[in-house]
């Protein structure tokens, strides 16, 4: 097949296929795809990065500005005794890092390992102000597959609030898995 192509007289009319020229084509293709990927990544980063906050970051003394109209994540422990069922398969609960707390509302089925006193990460936005008390509307509630495991953000949040007890209930001993 290639032998017949080599004898093709048409080939002579085209520019010679040198290694240099081939590398040029390759570089052009690579540059286009690289440019495309970088554009896509930067564009996606602008719109879809989700920042993580602890309850103390939002209402505590070390408050940080929280962007409005943007998805954020809040993580901590589900406060004991705070879980309430509301209308239409809804649920409300509070997330705490043992220093501060945030009220959360969620519509949907909770993960199997969602429990009071357990670590949880929620993703969503703050709802409209209701008399100074802002409610976090969660779109997603994430708990882990494993009851002995605490999300790293959550353990860091509790450590940051200074309420971490090494070896205590909060730091469930890790089973060798």
């Amino acid at each position, binding site marked *: 097949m290639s032998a017949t192509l080599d004898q093709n007289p048409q080939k002579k009319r085209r520019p010679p296929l040198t*290694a240099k020229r081939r590398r040029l084509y390759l570089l052009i*293709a690579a540059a286009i795809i690289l440019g495309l990927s970088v554009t896509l990544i930067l564009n996606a980063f602008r719109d879809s990065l989700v920042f993580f906050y602890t309850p103390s970051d939002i209402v505590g003394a070390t408050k940080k500005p929280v962007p409005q109209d943007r998805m954020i994540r809040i993580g901590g422990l589900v406060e004991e005794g705070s879980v309430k069922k509301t*209308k*239409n398969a809804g649920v409300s609960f509070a997330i705490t890092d043992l220093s501060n707390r945030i009220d959360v509302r969620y519509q949907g089925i909770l993960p199997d390992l969602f429990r009071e006193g357990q670590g949880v990460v929620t993703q969503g936005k703050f709802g409209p102000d209701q008399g100074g008390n802002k409610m976090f509307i969660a779109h997603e509630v994430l708990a882990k597959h494993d009851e002995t495991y605490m999300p790293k953000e959550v353990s860091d949040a509790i450590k940051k609030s200074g309420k971490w007890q090494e070896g205590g209930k909060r730091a469930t001993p890790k089973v060798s898995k």
Partner: protein
Amino acid sequence: MIVEIGHYALILAFGLALVQASAPLIGAQKNNAVLMDMGRMAAMAQFLFVALAFAALTHAFVVSDFSVAIVVANSHSAKPWLYKLTGVWGNHEGSMVLWVFILSLFGACVGTFGTNLPPTLRARVLAVQGMIGVGFLLFILTTSNPFLRLDPVPADGRGLNPILQDPGLAFHPPFLYLGYVGFSVAFSFAIAALIEGRVDAAWARWVRPWTLAAWCALTLGVALGSWWAYYELGWGGFWFWDPVENASVMPWLAGTALLHSAIVVEKRNALKSWTILLAVLTFVLSLLGTFIVRSGVLTSVHSFANDPERGLFILVLLMIAAGGGFGLYALRAHKLKSEGLFAPISREGGLVLNNLLLGAACATVFIGTLYPLLLDVLDGGKVSVGPPFFNLTFAPLMAPLVAVMGVGPMLAWKRGDLASALSRLWIAAVIAAVGGIAILFIHGGPVYAVIGIALSLWLIAGAITELATRIRLFKISVTASARRLRNLPLSAIGMTIAHGAVGIMILGITASSAWKIERILVMNKGDQVTVAGYTIKMGGVNNVPGPNYLAQRATLTVTRSERPVTTMFPEKRRFKNPVQTTTEAAIYTTGFADLYIALGDQQVPKAGSTAKAGWVVRVYYNPLVPWIWIGAIFMMLGGLVSLADRRHRVGAPTRAAS
């Protein structure tokens, strides 16, 4: 006793791995046949001893030997036997033993079947395999000894995480590891070739079947994981762009690129150093995947208890493999001269474009997965990169890839004719356009769905057209075409199947993402809801005991236009050992769509509350979702068909050369 034998066998295997890593390397340098042969022997012996250790561990799990720490932590006497068996790799230590077992199996295969390889190349490949074995055996023996005894012996175990007690997940890790570890062979061949300073078609003929086999296993492993997440997690989704999922898809993307570039090395003696680089990269990404899953540095919904210290060890192994591999590449790659020149518009050109796009897609997944880690290390705050990021970057890079996939196989090697290839694809173009326009009129969008459907139809029709062109269907008599089909190389048929399968999968992904229907509601006995024409009526919730759990089972009858369709039984299972609840979604599939029902918690409102009493029920209608896994299975089948090609058969490269 058996446990101690297992531990001892693992230590012996480590010693043998040391021999395998050094003797053949020195032998190849000094051209000493005895030393080189020692590598082969060591590989075989290492396999035997690792197999013995693996068997000892399996025995401990099957007979529930609760004097062994990991059996206590991960098993329970009341567990069904299948999960006692799969409990062997349902934990960190055992899964690493499985990893080394597969690694040593592959090493023994290279030693046994590699008789027709140049002896120095085989010796060096075995030495590199030995080095990987040394690293991982040392890792197991020092940080994760699976044979640790407990004293006093507990009466019973703590049980396997119930979410892992599932057939889909039972076989997910072995296939994933077969893939990851399979790429270690391509890595070893690449390093050996760099040491030799020589890559030729015979080298590629050896690397291709290994890569193909690893790729098939990884495809199945990733598909099993996604299928499991779909039916077990009760969210009705199949892919969450979670770090642990991304960890498995990165080596898959790089491995797919490697698979295609190795063809160019074999057929055209070009793209040599690029292929070597990809082989190194693919295995490094496999190690990165292991590191991400085992270290827990990234927050993932799929994280199981993990240990940062072990993560550090794997990170060091990863650095050595990456540093050694890329360093050697930088030093020696210039020796690999590619000879075959080709025009930009040619089969090779198409495959280069495939590699560039797959590489770019892999890079975006890499950046999206590791960016949170980077930002955290730099103290820039905690972020998560979710599905929107990947949808905005990965999908736009896949679209041109799929477009090229339709044309590429129609182009000739060396110098192709794009116009004539496209003119032969006019039917595929018409089908794609009609499909896209039909979707636009029926559903009115979204735009990505129109593009996705059109592209997948283009790809499926293109793959069929390519096969039809090869067998000159309707150009010559049907019997003559059938004869041509029989004489086609299996690798060509495999390619058609695999490419078509990608189209099927994209159809499934697009349709289920665009037109999924989700309803969450509280239902009582007698309540009904209609979703996508199906009327679902709640018949109540009963308690049903299982072997090691108690289930709350809802009975829901499904009718369509007054005619009974099926009865569905979603469950919530409460396990006793360990105490944990799992969701068992009920799925009714027509092959074209899934009706998916998950049972939530019981709602018992307090007095005076307006909340409705009953059960939370989540109903999904997922159009074409089964096609995702059908596509994955056909992709794997395409790979297997290609693997069965006589010219790819391991041990037959010389015959193919003639």
